[in-house]
């Protein structure tokens, strides 16, 4: 029987402890092999890390078995969870020393004219108008935390790290960012800048 022919949810829930143990071990191996392929070449990932990620992923998958709806192969669904576990941890380690104060301070500078480099504007009048409206909206329509969150994204700070720094949950953090983007977009529209203008400005 191939891995795709296994009824994974049933096997992982099996009351026969031998069958369940075999399924758990097989899935752990599949997840670890996948992680090895995905993270191959990274200097910050050792064999021990792969084992830890696979074990943590396995627990996460078992915890979420009820959420598997069969719209993809089970192993693809489980690999997606494993990658989320591994990358979240790797990003946390990379950014663990960034402080909220630094992020908030940087966010406060976002609206300052001096903070947008001269070569952003060029000679394009439409782009100049858009950036002026954007700067005004950032200054007047966003909260300090929204500004900090947007700057965190621009700095490629992991979203998990941003929400941790802002002391909020992942879903509340996403809503905060989404509300910020919608507010900025609305303000640009009110300034007569269309969606097409926005999409074309830096294309």
């Amino acid at each position: 029987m191939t891995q795709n022919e296994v009824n994974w949810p049933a096997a992982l829930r099996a009351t026969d402890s031998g069958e369940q143990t075999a399924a758990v071990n097989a899935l752990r191996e599949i997840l670890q092999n996948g992680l090895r392929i995905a993270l191959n070449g990274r200097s910050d990932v050792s064999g021990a890390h792969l084992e830890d990620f696979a074990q943590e992923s396995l627990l996460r998958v078992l915890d979420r078995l009820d959420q598997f709806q069969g719209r993809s192969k089970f192993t693809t669904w489980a690999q997606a969870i494993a990658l989320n576990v591994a990358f979240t941890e790797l990003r946390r380690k990379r950014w663990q020393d960034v402080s909220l104060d630094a992020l908030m301070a940087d966010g406060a500078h976002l609206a300052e004219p001096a903070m947008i480099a001269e070569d952003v504007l060029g000679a394009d009048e439409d782009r100049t108008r858009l950036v002026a409206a954007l700067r005004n909206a950032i200054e007047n329509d966003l909260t300090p935390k929204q500004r900090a969150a947007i700057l965190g994204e621009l700095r490629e700070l992991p979203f998990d790290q941003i929400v941790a720094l802002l002391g909020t949950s992942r879903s509340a953090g996403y809503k905060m960012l989404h509300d910020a983007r919608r507010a900025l977009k609305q303000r640009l529209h009110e300034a007569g800048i269309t969606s097409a203008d926005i999409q074309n400005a830096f294309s």
Partner: protein
Amino acid sequence: MNKMEQRLTREQVGSIVKMLGLTTDREFNCSECLQHVSEFAECQLANQSVGEVISKVEQHLAMCPECREEYEALMKILKAGQ
């Protein structure tokens, strides 16, 4: 960090503008994306069109570098298994 390092570059301002261009009233968050990304990845691998729900995965991936990084890693695994 000094002022020069804090100054937003053309790429960063462009990135804000691009994010606004992609912003819609109803979007998947990262958790919803994770729940559906395996189906999206298999459709992409099979070169199949995606439905309305799964198209929201594509929109989220365009907005979210972390989810995009994980999706690209998933595709790497799936392609290795072909």
